[in-house]
């Protein structure tokens, strides 16, 4: 467990670009990301390192990135939020129900109303998690495991298992449009990342979150109002999940109760890869940015290799799952070695 003094020196130091880069884990991570990127470029000559592929990746990874930011916040406080996917789908549905109302006619208020509904729904879900964890003292894993089932279940009941699809074109642009060639979802993700970065590095709330995760006993005795802190954390986690949900439904033009269940593992993987301490107290936005890029390059690269045999077998979605698992264990082993030395 990190000591108080570590945190203080981290906070005293001004985060200049060089000091950010020179932290060991980030340098290692940069190497991993670059290696994966180059490796995939070499394995897919003329296809991976193209503008087309890079922009297509830019449309794909923002959802995962936002989920990873949410998971990181919960991990920093020493907990975990397993319900993010459920929250995202529920929030997406809240928006979808309003969006399909417009039904072809122009409806200027529909889109803002839908976005508000999604964000409101996600914050409500987050507050429920926060109450269970902060006020009722339920272990985060258990509380969010239960709410994950509950939120997904409610989404199933609302939709009877069917997709709610077909939104106005203006809304679809949110997930498919681009500004000066930069995908809009990427901009949304970068916006979220910037906000979380400012929160963690520049506000007292961020400092308190890290203190709580580093040493909860010390946090209690330094007079932090833990319940309110946890309530806010999980509300924020929920809000981020809601943003991810909006990106998902506008990109796919459909909201489903059970979309993206594999995102949970991937988001945890990104957070661990990013160097977030699963025991709480530490995590950086820079890490998340690099880790999500590494994972997306791996994923896109493997997708391109799908139609040619590699080492005697064809690559499929399960090869990806296998690779992610190996990567997760490998990175944890490397981090462990780095901590030991």
């Amino acid at each position: 467990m990190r000591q108080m003094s570590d945190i203080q020196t981290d906070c005293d130091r001004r985060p200049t670009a060089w000091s950010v880069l020179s932290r060991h884990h980030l340098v290692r991570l940069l190497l991993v990301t670059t290696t994966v990127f180059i490796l995939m470029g070499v394995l897919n000559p003329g296809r991976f390192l193209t503008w087309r592929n890079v922009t297509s990746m830019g449309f794909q990874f923002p959802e995962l990135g936002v989920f990873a930011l949410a998971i990181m916040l919960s991990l920093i406080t020493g907990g975990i939020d397993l319900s993010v996917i459920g929250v995202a789908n529920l929030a997406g549905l809240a928006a979808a129900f309003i969006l399909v109302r417009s039904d072809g006619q122009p409806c200027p208020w529909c889109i803002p109303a839908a976005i508000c509904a999604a964000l409101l729904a996600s914050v409500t879900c987050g507050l429920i998690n926060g109450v269970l964890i902060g006020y009722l003292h339920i272990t985060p894993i258990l509380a969010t495991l239960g709410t994950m089932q509950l939120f997904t279940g409610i989404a199933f009941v609302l939709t009877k298992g069917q997709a709610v699809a077909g939104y106005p074109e203006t809304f679809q642009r949110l997930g498919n449009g681009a500004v000066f060639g930069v995908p809009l979802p990427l901009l949304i993700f970068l916006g979220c990342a910037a906000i979380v970065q400012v929160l963690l590095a520049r506000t007292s709330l961020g400092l308190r979150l890290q203190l709580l995760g580093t040493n909860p006993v010390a946090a209690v005795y330094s007079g932090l109002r833990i319940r309110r802190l946890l309530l806010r954390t999980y509300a924020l986690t929920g809000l981020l999940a809601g943003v991810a949900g909006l990106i998902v439904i506008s990109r796919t033009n459909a909201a489903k109760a059970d979309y993206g269940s594999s995102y949970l593992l991937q988001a945890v993987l990104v957070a661990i890869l990013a160097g977030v301490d699963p025991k709480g107290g530490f995590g950086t936005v820079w890490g998340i940015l690099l880790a999500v890029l590494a994972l997306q390059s791996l994923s896109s690269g493997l997708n391109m290799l799908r139609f040619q045999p590699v080492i005697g077998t064809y690559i499929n979605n399960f090869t990806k799952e296998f690779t992610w698992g190996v990567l997760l264990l490998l990175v944890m082993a490397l981090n462990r070695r780095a901590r030991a030395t």
Partner: protein
Amino acid sequence: MRKLLGQHEFYLAMILTVLVIAIGLANPAFLTRANLFDLCKSSTVMGLFALGVLIVLTSGGIDISFAAIGAFSMYVTSRLLLAVDFQGSVWVAFLLASLIGLALGLFNAVSINVLRLPTLIVTLGSASVFRGFLLAFIGTSIVNRLPAGMIAFSRRTLFEQTLATGETIGLSFSFVLYLLAIVAVAFVLRYTLLGRGIYALGGNAEAAERVGFNLRRVQFFIYGFVGLLSGVAGLVHACTMRNANPFDLVGTELSVIAAVVLGGASITGGRGTVLGAVLGVFLIVVINNSLILLGIPSYWQKVATGGVIIASVAITAIRKDGVRHAAASWR
């Protein structure tokens, strides 16, 4: 009597009884012998998994790779036996499945010992390794023709009875395996030093080490045993379904964990009983079964299980809230 009232299992049994009577009144089909046998059969696979989960939770860890281990052992065993055209006893299949499960469980134990990270995250990784390996390199097709021994096993029943309709009902023989496992786990947890070590590790790892428990050995036993039980559970599942589907089982992890928690096991370790876990599993099975019998659409299932988990852990948390100021409870 006061001791009885203070026990979690007592309340659980009461809730279960009330629920069973209520459902029985609403739909008499629920209390027929056929349905009770069916409930026992449905709770066998989940119960076998739950016994493993109970041990892990009691030791203060959490394992979510057990379903992947079950699917892996079950599928590999079936494919292997078919490949050699095996005609012998089903016990060879069980031996093989439990050995594969044991090996995967030991892989978890090694990873946890080397990485020294939260077991949730380690097993999250190993679960996707097992499942990914199975589906990417071994196969994705469902095996519909199982070895003869496994088919014979699935047909074996106890207390057979022919109904007036000409239908024969009986208690599936796999339930005997479940009972044996219950007795074995209860014995280990209650009467052996190893079992005490598991509770001690969950209660306070440092104290357990200081009184002389070899924590590494205890952990190897725990994760190895969970793997072994999962292998057996996977094979029972294949026998019950009469096919080996590599996509099965994974996705049920959380309801098994929920059942064990419902049974009073503490997710932070040190507390949990076999009776509680068995009752918890039965409660979840009854809820799922009764929703169907009461004509409630199946998409309510998740809401029901989610609600039951939250209510149960919330009640447990509120009841022991004497330690409100212990900062550890915020972990």
